[in-house]
């Protein structure tokens, strides 16, 4: 029986969203292959989280608990996780789409000689092999991989996996793993934090997003998008082109290399729909496109489309929606 280990980050005593997504994916994969799932729970206060990980599908948990792990740090996380990996000796190591998936997963994979795939959106099984699908070339193509080495590390793209839900009837052993930061492993020292607020609603959590692209022609129209977003209780996003042009700050970028979002409603205004942008909204439920070019690729992703200059539509749309919402 092979072992699938799931890295579980604990934030303020609870499992992170990325951990729940990875646990969900890990359990489904294990059920297809007849594998065992172990949670590698890393943090400062892990007791409750380890129990939750078991309820969320792990057959056992290995916990690394240390006050210095309260806030994520790549170097400390790598060292702590490596100790847990050695204790659990997994064949497959899963990460959710968070910072550890970005910078710790490749390093652990390198250390243990594993095949590493990032941004996985789908896991299947074929004759015992894990078959991993991920987008490449800015979302223009999908690549399907399997490992050519016995061990593998898989990093899941955020918001592509149904998060695990706890089942109070499940039980499993919890093993404590002794770990202390070795001499020479030094955490990065945080000297300044700069939080940028997006009109109160965080882009990655927003249920409604109004986004603008190159078609807006400059920074000013984003104010109108802001009004529409406020009306709908949402946030404003932008394409990489609009961010690169300096019209809006880079943290507003939605797409493969910006925020990956999954709102109920995504209104794309003056956005042509480059693959790299569409890759960031694969989880969006209803997509509305307003663009004057009927050939724009965004219309192949959209649920509802308006072929028009946004300037002719937006003011009336705000009035109509304001009227609807006040009823």
């Amino acid at each position, binding site marked *: 029986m092979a072992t699938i280990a799931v890295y579980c980050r604990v934030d303020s005593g609870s499992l992170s969203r990325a951990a729940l997504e990875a646990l969900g994916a890990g359990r489904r994969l294990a059920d297809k292959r007849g594998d065992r799932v172990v949670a590698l729970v890393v943090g400062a206060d892990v007791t409750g989280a380890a129990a939750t990980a078991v309820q969320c599908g792990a057959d056992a948990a290995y916990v690394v608990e240390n006050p210095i792990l309260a806030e994520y740090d790549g170097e400390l996380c790598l060292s702590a996780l490596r100790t847990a990996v050695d204790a659990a000796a997994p064949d497959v190591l899963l990460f959710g789409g968070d910072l550890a998936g970005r910078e710790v997963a490749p*390093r652990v994979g390198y250390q243990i000689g594993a095949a*590493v795939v*990032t941004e996985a959106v789908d896991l299947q099984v074929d004759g015992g092999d894990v078959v991993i699908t991920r987008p490449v070339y*800015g979302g223009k193509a999908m690549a399907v991989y399997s490992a050519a080495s016995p061990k593998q590390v898989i990093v899941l793209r955020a918001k592509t996996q149904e998060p695990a839900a706890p089942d109070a009837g499940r039980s499993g052993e919890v093993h404590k793993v002794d770990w202390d930061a070795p001499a020479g492993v030094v955490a990065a020292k945080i000297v300044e934090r700069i939080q940028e607020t997006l009109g109160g609603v965080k882009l990655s959590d927003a249920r409604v997003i109004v986004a603008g692209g190159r078609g807006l022609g400059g920074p000013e129209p984003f104010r109108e998008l802001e009004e529409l977003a406020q009306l709908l209780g949402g946030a404003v996003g932008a394409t990489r082109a609009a961010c690169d042009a300096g019209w809006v700050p*880079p943290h507003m970028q939605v797409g493969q290399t910006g925020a990956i979002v999954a709102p109920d409603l995504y209104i794309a205004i003056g956005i042509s729909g480059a693959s790299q942008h569409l890759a960031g909204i694969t989880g969006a439920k209803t997509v509305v496109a307003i663009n004057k070019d009927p050939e724009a690729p965004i219309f192949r992703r959209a649920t509802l489309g308006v072929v028009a200059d946004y300037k002719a539509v937006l003011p009336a749309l705000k009035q109509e929606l304001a009227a*609807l919402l006040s009823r």
Partner: protein
Amino acid sequence: MQILVGIKQILDPEIPASEFKVDPATNKPVPGRAKFVMDSYSEYALEVALQFKEKNPGTKIVAVCVGDKPADEVLRKALALQVDEVVRVWEDGWDDLDAHALAQILGRVAERIGGADLALVGRQSGDAERGLVGPMLAEELKAACITLATRVEAGGDNQITVRREAGGGFVKVEIRLPAVVTVTNDDSNVLRLPKVKDIMMASRKPITVLRAADLGLDPGALAPRLRLRSLFVPELAGDCELVEGESGSEQAAGLARRLRELKVV
């Protein structure tokens, strides 16, 4: 202080999706009319290196590219932007290198040039989009690693401060050297344009070309750990319902009505 900048040459990512084709026999994209260009995240990394050098005279920048002869073009661009030295590494049969192999190769190059205090690479490339080479290179160099950086400044004794993206904002962190920093896009690190005179000069500067044997690399250790089973172009649904109307306000009214009917608002 010596900075190694990893530069990748890729198929132009601006090629429209409608023109993007895959050859099913090779599982590789068909270049068609598209050009090969410097990867945009390599450009951001290079700009961060150039800005660091401007503020810290005496810094030496070595740009390294793993690629065949046509990759000289991106190294010439780096030379035109006044990097001190460029290295191209290639060996026959290196068409399917994985990130492990690339990290090993860059690690050996760092050794060969007398060490890298700081290695800068893009957060991921615009083709394979793995985002693995930077963190794996940190393992090779036994270095600290920070991803998603937008700016790097000299810090105290043998340290740098790095501004990185974090949770919808930024943090500034101080880390020790040696370090590997992966760079993401920001309006502060858009690659500058070279001067015409420097482009001319760059064509006369040398490009060091290294092969596997020069780096003491064992071809067996570079064998890929992943097997690409297939590469395909996904279909988009294409069932968009267009909201018609004589004017923008009619279309707006129609759109609002449909959004309500679909219970979206």
